[in-house]
């Protein structure tokens, strides 16, 4: 392993987090036509963290490479990552296919080898499938340490990394040597706005396009979606005029 940190940041293009998703007519998936897409918020945090780590440890970080697995339009998300400070980027173009976490992990495994990355920072989950699996699967495939749901990251001079994680009982701090996978949680940092000069410079940064076949990974789905439906609508409540009525209603509902 080199004595420098090479960071790999996977980013996913998802339906805008602030929009209400709609189910398509066939009930097989979410409507994506004419819908606004943007970068997965957790991945946004991952990019921001990579930049912060480099800022705090200029001598230690060698490069930051962003990668996205998605359709051609995922280039937009990569451009944002480049504008924020990533040096280079790759798009693995899978067209409109919905790639499952295991396939994603396998692709990232191949890319790690290609770029010799020793620190992978990624969102803990994508807001469309909420799987929360890719980081962990990737750690398994690579045989690396993993620090998931990170809320604070500190890189030390000796290339060890301390990660604070929010867990049920409080905050857990773990320390790890490289190579390491970190998955980000909301409180890790606050992504900044990208300013225009950086957006314009990002256009000139490298963005290579690959296919899953080029990496020798089979992205065929192992799961079949049977049906997607909305949760049942919340029924309106009933207002009562006084306590007697309340008691009566509760009796009617056989609650008391």
């Amino acid at each position, binding site marked *: 392993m080199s004595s420098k940190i090479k960071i790999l940041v996977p980013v996913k293009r998802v339906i805008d987090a602030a*929009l209400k998703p709609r189910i398509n007519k066939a009930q097989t998936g979410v409507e994506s036509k004419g819908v606004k897409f943007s970068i997965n918020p957790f991945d946004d945090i991952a990019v921001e963290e990579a930049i912060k780590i480099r800022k705090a440890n200029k001598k230690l970080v060698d490069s930051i490479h962003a990668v996205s697995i998605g359709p051609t339009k995922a280039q937009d998300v990569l451009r944002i990552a480049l504008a924020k400070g990533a040096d280079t980027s790759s798009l693995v173009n899978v067209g409109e296919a919905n790639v499952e976490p295991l396939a994603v992990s396998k692709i990232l495994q191949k890319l790690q080898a290609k770029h010799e990355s020793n620190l992978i920072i990624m969102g803990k989950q994508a807001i469309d499938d909420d799987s929360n699996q890719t980081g962990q699967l990737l750690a398994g495939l690579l045989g690396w340490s993993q620090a998931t749901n990170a809320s604070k990251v500190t890189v030390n001079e000796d290339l060890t990394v301390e990660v604070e994680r929010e867990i049920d009982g409080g905050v857990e701090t773990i320390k790890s040597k490289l190579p390491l996978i970190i998955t980000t949680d909301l409180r890790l940092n606050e992504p900044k706005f990208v300013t225009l000069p950086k957006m314009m410079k990002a256009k000139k940064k490298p963005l290579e396009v690959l296919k899953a076949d080029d990496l020798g990974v089979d992205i065929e789905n192992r799961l079949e979606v049977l049906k997607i439906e909305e949760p049942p609508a919340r029924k*309106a409540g009933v207002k009562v005029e006084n306590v007697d009525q309340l008691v009566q209603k509760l009796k009617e509902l056989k609650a008391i």
Partner: protein
Amino acid sequence: MSSLRLATSSANRATCRVLKSSVRPTFLSASTLLSTFQTLSSIKPTSASAPISRSVRSYSTANDVKLTSESYPNLERNKDFAKLSDADIEAFKQILGGNASGVITNSDDLLFFNEDWMRKYKGQSQLCLKPKTTEQVSQILKYCNDHKLAVVPQGGNTGLVGGSIPVFDEIVLSLSNMNSVRSFDNVSGILKVDAGVVLETADMYLAEQGFIFPLDLGAKGSCHVGGNVATNAGGLRLLRFGSLHGSVLGLEVVLPDGTIVNSMDALRKDNTGYDLKQLFIGSEGTLGIITGVSILCPARPKAVNIAFLGVESYEAVQETFKKAKNELSEILSAFEFMDRSSQVLAAHMIKQSHPLAQDEEPDSTGVSQPPEYPFYVLIETSGSNKDHDDAKLESFLENVMEDGTVSDGTVSQDESQLRTLWRWREGIAEASNQFGGVYKYDVSLPLPVLYELVEAVKVRLAEHDLISFDDASKPVVDAVGYGHVGDGNLHLNVSVRGYNKDVEKVLEPFVYEWIQEHKGSISAEHGLGFQKKNYVGYTKSDVEIKLIKDLKKHYDPNGIMNPYKYI
């Protein structure tokens, strides 16, 4: 997971107006509230019914508001008005069909209806009525007119010139309980609503249908459509959708004598006689009460972008505006400007890094300083094709960056960034209020001299040694300028630590005289209300004022409709 309190949607009025500092997006938008709406006619706005026995207010830090009659001791209650009696209250209870919650007499509950949003004015009403139907409004007004009881119509009570609250003991007639969407035609885009529908609710309803309400303003979570029409509200999208005088097709109005004037079925084109509804649009409750609105709504844009820019001078603001109109043209939907002082105030309230801040870290109280650009510009584009709009905006921004018109900027990358950028503009009104109070001046001026008013006021306040950001002994914190520069509309806010007669004397009539000298309007969109009643002469001629008074006398001979205000 921490959550973002979307500034414009929440369960009660008080928190609606407080733009709380946000940290993270929740992954459900305001429109998820719509999933609870079952039918057309049962839309219940989540924010229209105020929590009436809440005495904790979260707008300004002032604890107690002075009675308007005490702040202006020369004002006299009109002796011709009757005083409220028990018999009157009984009669109203009858009219409202024994609905106890529609008749409010408890003084704590009345606090909300008696104080304005800025906590600058406070009335002494002893009764608030909340009718549910137009027929009830008609009967109430007829009774009041017969018995010479003064009435103040009230919507969301978000007005900024003290026009929506009583001065003395006028009866408050609140439209909050008339809040149904009556109908919507998705071919013509005509929406018909009760006057008490909250603006944001109407817009969310339209969003589901692919349409948009042709009006948007900071108070959207609390203000009523009826109130918007009564005040001819301008807002953020006037640049694109024009004024309510053009988009309102018909009204249902109750005259002071109880007569119901109904033009709700009016169509897009109708040239049969005087356009009566125009009288009521902008009449501020002085000629009648609006109970229904029929309004033409445009198709909702599919692609919205916000660019937030930093520029070096007010000239650069104007230059940017020129170029924006030229290069963005039909997709330009809002053009706002803010001076740096306004961003400093906003930073104190929003407690997050400024959008254009790159390395500035917040201090121990969470406040960070905005970058050093003297002026900021917010541009919104809306269109039907994202790629087309993105390309146009990108090209425009490249040009203005390259030729130096603009020094720096950012573009919203997603919905939550979009809302954050708007907050830095929409939150200024509230931020100006946070230290104890604010003197607001909403004026129209010729574009070249628009910002000079702010500079003149700052100089004058300094000459009288009244202004200091850090020295708490001075009453004025700062004077800031911002607004719909695209419409030639400036909002001058003098942020104070408390309302103070000395400050008021220094500001008025100085500001109004300055405006008159430069041939502007003393009230571009906020209206006259109580605050500007005596200053109409600075903008309108004597002939015009006489015609207005003639109309008022004709339709409201007893003068019971919103007295002591307007003109």
